[in-house]
């Protein structure tokens, strides 16, 4: 069963990582969900698919009051990101879902109505949560054509969605990257195939290099911290993307 791990805490400002679901059927890709809490408000990043909703809901509820959930942040439109939308709305009908304007009329196929969605314009925007000012950082075409990361300048954490994702073997499924070069082997094929644009990749690398990042937290795989963050950005900058094989 999934569990929420506190990866950052400063007073009532917290980041929870909901990760590693051993009971999940093997044919469903493993995902990480992140909860940002500040005081009385919480935001859930990439809530995940329908199948894992019970596990995510209970892991979240174990660590924070689920009625404090003010919004969902969907980095993009994929089913492993946001197909559970209707279920979260079933629990809390007035939840806001922040997502690229590009997906605003597509996501209602998963649930919600026009008042549910807060479209993020291409250059990004500020999302207020409690006293925090979170930044939706453009990451278009990596891999989705309307794609955002979420940066918390106070915690210095960048939620990077599918960027940084690794498909790890069960014996290397630690919450944090321990050995970068060993870990990155499991990220290579994924990034080559899923990330479609070299230009978009270079833009992103430049953009996030200007941010102060202590932790880069992806939707699949382990969390990069400290020097591994820049190591990842450099690795990604040099990687040839948009290739079918090799």
């Amino acid at each position, binding site marked *: 069963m999934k569990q929420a791990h506190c990866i950052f805490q400063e007073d009532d400002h917290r980041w929870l990582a909901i990760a590693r679901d051993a009971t999940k*059927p093997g044919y469903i890709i493993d995902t990480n969900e992140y909860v940002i809490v500040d005081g009385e408000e919480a935001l859930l990043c990439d809530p995940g698919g329908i199948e894992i909703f019970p596990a995510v*809901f*209970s892991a979240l509820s*174990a660590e924070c*009051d*689920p009625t404090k959930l003010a919004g969902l942040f969907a980095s993009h439109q994929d089913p492993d990101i946001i197909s559970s939308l209707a*279920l979260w709305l079933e*629990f809390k009908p007035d939840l806001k879902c922040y997502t690229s304007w590009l997906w605003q009329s597509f996501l209602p196929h998963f649930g919600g109505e026009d008042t549910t969605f807060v479209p993020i314009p291409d250059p990004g925007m500020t999302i207020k949560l409690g006293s925090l000012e979170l930044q939706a950082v453009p990451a278009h075409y990596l891999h989705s054509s309307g794609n955002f990361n979420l940066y918390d300048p106070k915690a210095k954490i960048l939620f990077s969605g599918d960027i940084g994702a690794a498909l790890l073997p069960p014996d290397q499924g630690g919450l944090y990257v321990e050995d970068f070069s060993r870990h990155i082997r499991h990220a290579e094929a994924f990034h080559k195939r899923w990330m479609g644009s070299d230009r978009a990749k270079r833009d992103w690398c430049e953009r996030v290099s200007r941010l102060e990042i202590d932790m880069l937290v992806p939707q699949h795989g382990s969390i990069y911290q400290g020097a591994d963050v820049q190591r990842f950005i450099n690795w990604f900058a040099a990687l040839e993307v948009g290739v079918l094989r090799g």
Partner: protein
Amino acid sequence: MNAPERNLKLTNHRSGELAGIVRVNEEIKAIVATAFRINLMALNAIFLAKRAGNAALGFGVLSNELRRFAQDLTRHMASLRDMTSGSVGSVTGVVQQQRNSRILAEAIRLAGEVPGVREARKRGMARLSAQQVKLRALDLRLRAAVEETQQLVELGGVLARSAKIEAAYGGGFSPALMQVSTDFAEVIAQIKRSLEVLGKERLVKD
């Protein structure tokens, strides 16, 4: 509980209502096709009666009536079809709501009584029962419409039987007219059977 079992539990529930609608639609399609056949048969019968002349005057009148019957039946079936296509939306709503409630219930079971779950459960139940009320009303309307159609088909049966009697007075054309009226009786019996099946279908399980 192992993982695939959990998956089954969440998804493999009551597709019964949708399957019911599919059966109703198939039955309606069968009746529409038969009504079309009656229409053609009646047209042929009208020409046959014309050729038979005075000996088949009564048969000609009945053939005209049967043709009108086929047209009425087609109209009835069109309105039945409108009802069932509307019900696909309602049934889908119910199925979705049931699925969401079930997954939420599973989440609540795992999480325990955390704040907000009671309200969420109540809202879900209210939505579900509102949708079921709608579906039940639709079911009643559908049943009433099927009964009305059954009465119409009774009338068609009477016409077919009368045609058989008239055929006996058809002189040299009598065997041909008899064949046509027997065909009428057969297809009408077929429609009756379909309507019986339709009358037994329920869009909502009690």
